């Protein structure tokens, strides 16, 4: 097990580390910089959907509803922790009624 963990550590850490050693000094052309600027937002989109449909095992509609609640809350609330707590509370409260 120790070798498996060590191997998993290495192949996970190296891709995390390498850009910190090289990408910082690189003088990237403007179009690459613009490309990089969109990475976080593209990543967010792909992280949210379709994964959210399986966020609560076997309850896609409940999870999607809580996601919509989080989105609406984010229009009014800036504090991210509050939004996370709201979504969790909504799922825990509504878990017992028959939303699929």
């Amino acid at each position, binding site marked *: 097990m120790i*070798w498996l963990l060590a191997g998993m550590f290495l192949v996970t850490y190296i891709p995390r*580390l390498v*850009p*910190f050693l090289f990408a910082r000094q690189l003088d990237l052309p403007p179009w690459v910089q613009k490309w990089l600027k969109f990475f976080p937002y*593209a990543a967010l989109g*792909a992280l949210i*959907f379709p994964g959210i449909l399986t966020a609560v095992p076997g309850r896609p509609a409940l999870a999607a509803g809580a996601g919509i609640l989080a989105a609406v809350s984010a229009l009014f609330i800036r504090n*991210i922790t509050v939004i996370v707590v709201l979504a969790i509370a909504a*799922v825990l409260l509504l878990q017992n009624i028959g939303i699929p």
Partner: protein
Amino acid sequence: MSNGLPIALGYLPVAITFGILGRQAGLSVAAVTGMSAWVYAGASQFLAVKMIASGAGFFQIILATLILNFRHFLMSTVLARKIEVSANKAAALSYWVTDETFVLASVHARPGGLSALGFFTMAVLAYLAWVSGSFAGGMFADLIPVRIVDGMGIGLYALFIALLIPSARKHWQFALVAALSALTAWGLSRLAPGLSEGWTLIAATLGVSALGTLLPDAESEP
């Protein structure tokens, strides 16, 4: 720079679930805790546990881990250019690059960059939640109410949504890119179910961000 509390809240139930599943797959409490402490990459840990349970070999698991976690290369590339640090500190900071610390740091950071200390404090809190949650899940697997932990799994998605909405409102370009990327990820998961989550994320991020470069610039840069 926001702190790591929302990430920690999101990680805790997922980490507990990981601890429980790890024990069910036959790993010791030390092994599940150690994997969380050393590898610190949720999706790959769940995959490794699944592969261990099904009798996969050492190199198969290592390769699957590399493939799934290679997406962090993209995230580190963005963060390395935003965080001002020396090479030594960078080596330490990069260990804490995850999907969640990346999006929080890159989307939520004040314009003009992000301090190394700010990233560090956020990331360490998230890390502690991940490791301690894995330990608790492994240690108390039988006592934990699975339904509640399952329900709390929505937390990380609420975090992602809460990060996206303000930027998407400010710049339609970001909203469009995020929406197209979600559709792409969904399409890929339908058309190529064999593709790992890691490649789906990489393909959607690289491809749709490239389309984004064709969009007109926002009047005020974020």
